[in-house]
């Protein structure tokens, strides 16, 4: 348990969380930038700053769960150590009010303070503790344009004593003047080997037995999002440990937790739409096509599956289908794209899935 004690000493300001109930995502957050998985380029650049004590403004961008927030937090920890962390780092995220008034007051006030003298590190380690502060703006793409514009001059004026680190998913939502003031780091989705090694590490340290099948299901359902796969793993282990007697985690458990529609349901729907190799009874099926499709769609909606999930799985199935012609596939792809847009705009799920079903059906019938 020495592992937890050390962590508790590092962050004394946090409320004590029973480590057993802590989300694994927090528990296994990288402590140093060397622990960050699969972002070699970024880590290599940042490691230099640890020795040279020179840090540019930074902009981290990339899909969720690739380690952006973890990297900057770990870097700040390594730079300042636990004792200086609070006075030198300001972390703001979307759960804080971040309108233009906050930028003008809170951020500006913090930015113009002269960094306080370095407190003596209580845990005996030496930290570089360079003479500047770091302001971390997490989820910066949800800041308004005005708030971003107000940052521009602040970043330049106090550049001597304050460094900014913007963290966001979509670099295009950051206004150009801000982006050009930062050095950009792209975080790429994790490759499956580093995800699986990290998951295996967590599983062994938590004494959860997982098979290779489970790990590969975790990877395929999370699409390179490490946080998501860790959360799924934790939920699955909770569920399996809470039953009596404890059962082994199975890939279908993971699929249910992840909200993935079972393959049988999707295949059944696809067969109704005529995706399967066209057999003898295809003509009779087409004769009452509308009612068949509608019945199937109603059944699926009653089961409560999410429309966007159905759409993406159906899309995968159709696009990778071996016998459909390119023309049919492209017609279907068009249908899927339009339905996805409609769902994003908040359209009714049943109508959209029905619409997709009918149009795919039409596109596939000669």
């Amino acid at each position: 348990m020495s592992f937890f004690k050390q962590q508790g000493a590092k962050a004394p300001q946090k409320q004590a969380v029973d480590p057993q109930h802590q989300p694994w995502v927090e528990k296994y957050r990288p402590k140093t930038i060397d622990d960050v998985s699969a972002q070699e380029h970024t880590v290599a650049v940042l490691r230099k700053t640890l020795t040279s004590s020179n840090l540019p403004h930074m902009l981290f961008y990339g899909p969720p769960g690739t380690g952006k927030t973890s990297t900057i937090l770990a870097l700040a920890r390594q730079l300042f150590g636990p004792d200086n962390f609070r006075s030198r780092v300001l972390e703001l995220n979307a759960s804080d009010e971040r309108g233009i008034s906050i930028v003008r007051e809170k951020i500006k006030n913090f930015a113009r303070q002269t960094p306080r003298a370095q407190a003596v590190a209580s845990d005996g380690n030496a930290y570089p503790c360079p003479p500047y502060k770091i302001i971390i703006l997490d989820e910066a793409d949800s800041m308004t344009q005005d708030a971003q514009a107000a940052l521009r001059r602040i970043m330049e004026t106090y550049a001597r004593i304050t460094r900014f680190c913007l963290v966001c998913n979509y670099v295009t939502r950051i206004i150009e003047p801000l982006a050009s003031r930062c050095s950009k780091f792209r975080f790429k989705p994790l490759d499956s080997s580093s995800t699986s090694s990290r998951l295996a590490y967590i599983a062994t340290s938590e004494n959860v037995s997982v098979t290779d099948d489970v790990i590969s299901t975790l990877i395929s359902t999370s699409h390179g999002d490490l946080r998501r796969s860790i959360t799924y793993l934790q939920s699955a282990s909770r569920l399996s440990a809470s039953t009596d007697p404890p059962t082994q985690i199975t890939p279908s458990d993971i699929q249910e937790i992840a909200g993935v529609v079972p393959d049988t349901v999707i295949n059944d729907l696809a067969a109704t739409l005529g995706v399967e190799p066209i057999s003898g009874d295809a003509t009779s099926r087409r004769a009452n096509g509308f009612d068949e499709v509608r019945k199937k769609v109603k059944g699926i909606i009653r089961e409560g599956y999410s429309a966007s999930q159905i759409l993406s799985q159906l899309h995968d199935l159709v696009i990778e289908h071996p016998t459909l012609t390119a023309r049919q596939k492209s017609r279907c792809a068009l249908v899927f794209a339009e339905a996805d847009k409609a769902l994003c705009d908040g359209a009714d799920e049943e109508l959209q899935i029905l619409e997709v079903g009918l149009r795919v059906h039409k596109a596939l019938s000669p």
Partner: protein
Amino acid sequence: MSLWVDKHRPRVLDDLHYHAGLSARLRALAASGDFPHMLFYGPSGAGKKTRIACTLRELFGKGAEKLKIDQRVFMTPARRKLDVNVVQSNYHIEITPSEVGNYDRVVIQELLKEIAQTQQVDLSAKQRFKVVIINEADSLSRDAQAALRRTMEKYMSNMRIILCTNSTSKLIAPIKSRCLLVRVAAPTTEEMIDVLRHVGRKEGFDVPDKIAHEITEDANGNMRKAVLVLEALKMQSTDLDKPLTIAKPDWETYCHKVGDMIIQEQSPARVMEVRAKLYELLSHCIPPTIVLKTIAERVVQQVDESLKAEIMHWAAIYEVRMRIGNKKIYHLEAWVVKVMSLYKHLFYDINMTDFDD
């Protein structure tokens, strides 16, 4: 005297009639002390809220049932006052942030932080954390969902969030990845009949097979509706032996009437009549999407096979436009006119071919 729906609503997990596997999981999770954030999703009337209430009862014991309704006032950054109704017990708090429309972010930020930063004061409580239930989570704005993200991680020690929603499509991925997803599917016909029988027995009568089947057919997986209909029928005739007709809601018959009108005649004059009826429906606060769907269902029952897909296609298109747009009636009317023209074209073409022959 309360409605049967409330009177016979299961209070503990053991009383639930269907999804036994799910109940077992919930019980195990509540007992383990390691309770995650949860996201319940499924069609309406499937029993999401009932399951949430049962889980709370399992977590905190009877105290979770002592509810009081409170009105909170929140202040937007622009100094506008917002009144929000919250339902709370000592252990949990229930909010419907979509009530305040665009300002839901403010409510989420203020309320969650307030709860998250106070610890459980009741030392005898079974759990150290409080639970926040967020209803209609799919209508949360993007900003509000973004505000939830970090809060959910940061304050895990003091608070758990249970989201309740019809569909997960409108939730952003980061929220979904932080929750344990719980799908509550609608009950099957047999399960619904079981529940109806159970309610009947509790009230001291037997539900005839035929009635039970008719009710479940009509309810289409909505348990709440089924029990309400059963009670209404029982009120009509105490023995349930006469041939009973399940009374459809007024708006539904009204919508069907509109559907019939579209089929009967296609002319500008008829469009005006339909328009008056649509206005009537909208002014009675029937959601336009439901109006459109009900009319479309009625229309496709009566038209030629070749037209059905086309009519549904346009219904889907105009439904999206209705969401994006402002005035619902434009799009409803546009769809009506479109259907009429399609219908007329079909006949026109057939007549022409006949003529050619």
